[in-house]
């Protein structure tokens, strides 16, 4: 099981990011689950969404309290106490910022900073970083091929938005070191008692 928690603000396409990632996993043959944790559903307010991947069906419906990875869409959210709570000791944080400093990490936790908003603005004209961050995440973990994300974007949107986002996705994937989180993104199905 791989668990991911995505932090963003209302209006940044946070829940959409979770849905796109799960849809990409499903199109690639994995079992996946994505759902939001709705706080105050206001534009600009902090929001959280969750994604799970596994090789076998996922039945549990509890929130992700011990994620393997965090994707942070807005660096200012790092100031919220407890935002990295429960993150695995070997977990990775992907954060949308040009340079990440002063972020305390525990033991073997890893952090990758990636200025996704600037890249998104360049490619799509809007500073919506979600698809770029997902592409970077898939590149870091090699959890799914980039084409799976492109398929998910193609199924969700139509027209020029798709073309621009696919170009953004391809560029974003090359903007981070490929495969450095590969070992942490291995899906261990755990004990299968009833399968």
């Amino acid at each position, binding site marked *: 099981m791989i668990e991911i928690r995505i932090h963003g603000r209302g209006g940044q396409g946070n829940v959409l990011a*979770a849905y796109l990632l799960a849809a990409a996993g*499903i199109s690639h043959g994995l079992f*996946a*689950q994505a*759902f939001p944790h709705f706080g105050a559903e206001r534009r600009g307010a902090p929001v959280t969404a969750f994604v799970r991947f596994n090789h076998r069906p996922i039945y*549990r419906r*509890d*929130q992700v309290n011990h994620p393997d990875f965090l994707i942070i869409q807005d660096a200012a959210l790092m100031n919220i106490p407890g935002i990295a709570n429960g993150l695995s000791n070997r977990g990775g944080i992907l954060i949308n910022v040009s340079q990440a400093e002063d972020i305390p990490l525990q033991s073997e936790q890893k952090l990758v900073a990636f200025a996704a908003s600037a890249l998104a603005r360049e490619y799509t004209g809007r500073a919506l970083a979600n698809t770029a961050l997902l592409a970077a995440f898939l590149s870091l973990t090699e959890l799914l091929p980039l084409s799976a994300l492109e398929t998910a974007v193609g199924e969700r949107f139509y027209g020029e938005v798709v073309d621009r986002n696919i170009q953004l996705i391809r560029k974003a994937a090359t903007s981070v070191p490929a495969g450095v989180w590969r070992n942490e993104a291995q899906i261990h199905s755990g004990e299968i008692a009833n399968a």
Partner: protein
Amino acid sequence: MLKALEGSQAIAQTVALCRPDVVSAYPITPQTHIVENIAKLIADGRVNCEYVSVESEFSAASVVLGAAAAGARAYTASASQGILLMSEVLYNIAGMRIPMVLTCANRAVSAPLSIWNDQQDSMAVRDAGWIQFYCADNQEAIDTTIQAFRIAQECELPVMVCMDGFTLTHTMEALSVPSQEEVDTFLPPFEFSRRLDPRAPISMGTLVSPDFFPEARHSHHAALLHATETIITADQDWMKICGRFYGGLLGVDGPDDARVGIMVIGSIYGTLLEARNEFPELPPWSLIRLRVFRPFPIEAVREVCCGLDDVIVVERALSPGSGGIIGAEVRAALYGLEHAPRVHNVAVGLGGRDVSMQILPRLFELFEAPEPVQFKVFDLEIDRLEPEDQ
């Protein structure tokens, strides 16, 4: 074919496959995405149906009542305050024995205001005379919705399909939405023998004097009790088409030698199912999933509880001043049964409180209690209350 779908999206597509004639609804979180998606399918011409926008849930329920009475396959959806605002009409729909389907995207009831999931809303209208299903997951919600349309018209009773708000409605996962052919094979065109017809006028819901009211109530009650057979048959017949079976009235998971059981309702089932693997050191236990709450499956509950020493009824609503709602009914069903198990009763996850797998070993502690736990709100952080409120 499996598709990545949000629960609400899947329900909207499923309703469309059931060929409704009239849908009327008023949006409310967390039901909104269901009716929004249905409205879009209708606007896009994907389903030949009239969508009636209204100014309140009271009107939505009234529109579908009238539509079904006139012979249309009718559908609505709501949650929480919306269900309560509908409640007068819900009694009327059931009392007039109008066949129709409603999805309840379960949500807590105010006050305090909460948009999150529990099942206080549908439990508040449990005595309105509707058939009530509670779905454990989104696939079950899809399959149950299709079954509900057939059950409604075969029993001439309205059917409420309950699915946990957010936990199911807003979760995306791989789901199998059946084909139009499959649904058409299972679900005949809508027919209602007592429909309003200007050539053969009748009145519905008229004043009934005391010389007939108890008979009307009796026949309604009997119709609900008789619905159990139709419900089980619908589940079996749909399995022949889609390959999935939900146990009819309830489902059981676990070894035959279990001496203890946990009975749940709704989506908490999946969390406990997975917790079974997480805590393999626990003694053998049975996980019972109540699928139908109205009619209450008295015989089936007796059957699954027979042979157990202890059963914990875990629910997501309560009757303040009394205790658990399902717990009380389970105790009543088991009353007088030889070797009936001890029944513990707790409420969890009220107002959307997260229920994690860690709850399983904590529930097991109840089996050690010297006296059965009558009722308590289980996942409390009691220290957060002022001493006088504890």
